[in-house]
């Protein structure tokens, strides 16, 4: 009998200066994390438009994580502060609409934190996997 193990699809937006470099460091140190995580490079976490996140969900992503420099360490001084506000509001809104809150996350990962990057992705992928497929955003307008 074939068991089709459910694999979540996770989109990770990583800022070029800290988190993308942190992901590279995880690679340099050969720190494993699930292959379900696919990284998209952005110059700064503040480049991430809520539309990108919703788009990812709509196209079948099960989780979206945004990684940026630690607050105070943004390469552009303040970009991640805006990310923090925008995402706090957006995630709170998604929660308000009844979307599972574990599907979205913001994590601050510096260029030196390869281990944190790998651990974060592992943890996030596990949490998202435990939720199963993302149906709610898909179904929000389709009452069955």
């Amino acid at each position: 009998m074939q068991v089709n193990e459910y694999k979540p699809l996770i989109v990770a937006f990583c800022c070029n200066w800290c988190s993308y470099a942190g992901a590279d460091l995880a690679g340099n140190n050969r720190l494993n994390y699930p292959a379900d995580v696919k990284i998209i490079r952005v110059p700064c976490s503040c480049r991430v438009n809520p539309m990108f996140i919703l788009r990812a969900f709509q196209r079948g992503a099960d989780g979206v994580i945004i990684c940026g420099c630690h607050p105070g360490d943004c390469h552009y001084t303040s970009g991640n502060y805006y990310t923090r506000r925008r995402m706090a509001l957006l995630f709170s809104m998604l929660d308000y609409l009844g979307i599972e809150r574990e599907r979205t996350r913001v994590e601050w990962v510096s260029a030196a934190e390869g281990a944190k990057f790998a651990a974060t992705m592992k943890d996030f992928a596990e949490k998202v996997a435990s939720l199963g497929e993302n149906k709610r955003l898909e179904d929000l307008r389709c009452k069955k």
Partner: protein
Amino acid sequence: MQEIKREVLVNKAKELLSDGTVDRVLGWKRGEFDYDVTPGVFRSAEELDSGFVWGDFCGANFSKYLVKETAKGEGRVLVFLKPCDTYSFNQLLTEHRFDREKVYALGVPCNGMLDISRIKESAEGIVSVCEEDGKVTADTLYDGKKTFDRDALLPDRCSNCKSKKHVAYDELLGSDGEVLDSGRFDEVEKLEKMTADERFAFWQGELSRCIRCNACRDVCPACTCEKCVFDNPDSGVENKAAADSFEEKMFHIIRAFHVAGRCTDCGECSRVCPQHIPLHLLNRKFIKDIDEFYGEYQAGAEVGSRAPVVNYTTDDIEPSQAVERGEQNA
């Protein structure tokens, strides 16, 4: 019944037209029925006499019309602003959407506008609506005369009015009120206290009725973009016909996010929705979160203020805490 009489407004408008202060008047114009009032431009005393309306169905917020109207010519436009309209007026000024010099703003007090759909629920074929001593009487073709408590006919935005105070005007007719301590977040809180499943079911029920007529967007004083992303083929989220269901689902979230920190909570979106979706509950969620996370902020309270979404402090709440806080509410 409104505190101030139609004649006062008409006379003031005539006076300003005749002394050349303004060359046109943006006001409420008579439609087919008593309750059918639309925004209109009046250029003469005659037009005012015949078409100008002031009463319980003059809910329309004219701020947004100023964007287009002021661009039409050099002369000044007279505009009537109810207290809640003045917030939108200021917000649009903050965003440089029209030239303040081209506007003469008359503040008018407001006792709350009626929601005709509440009368229509129990009365068909309304011919006329009149009011006396807090009672509203509708004369109908099929159900005869029907009488209602005025308070019961107020939409949520009026029963939970956030302010009777005008924050912008050149001249004030009648008396000014105060910023009120309204229970406008009660509904939001009720939703927050539900389980995630209940919230999902609630919003699925509401949003599935949306027919994407765009009325909410078209009336919204914060939606004044030269070109809306939903109309822009290059935006990636454009849609006319729902070939792809994405835009349909995301339209309201994105719209609410786009107006977050700019929405004055005027309630026009819910007023015009033909499907009666409580869209203001989306906007109010953002307003409530902004107030709680970053300190109280009222868009449009003053010109030039910096909205919390385009601001920050170094010790802001983390997104994970923002949703956890929701948990405590539940």
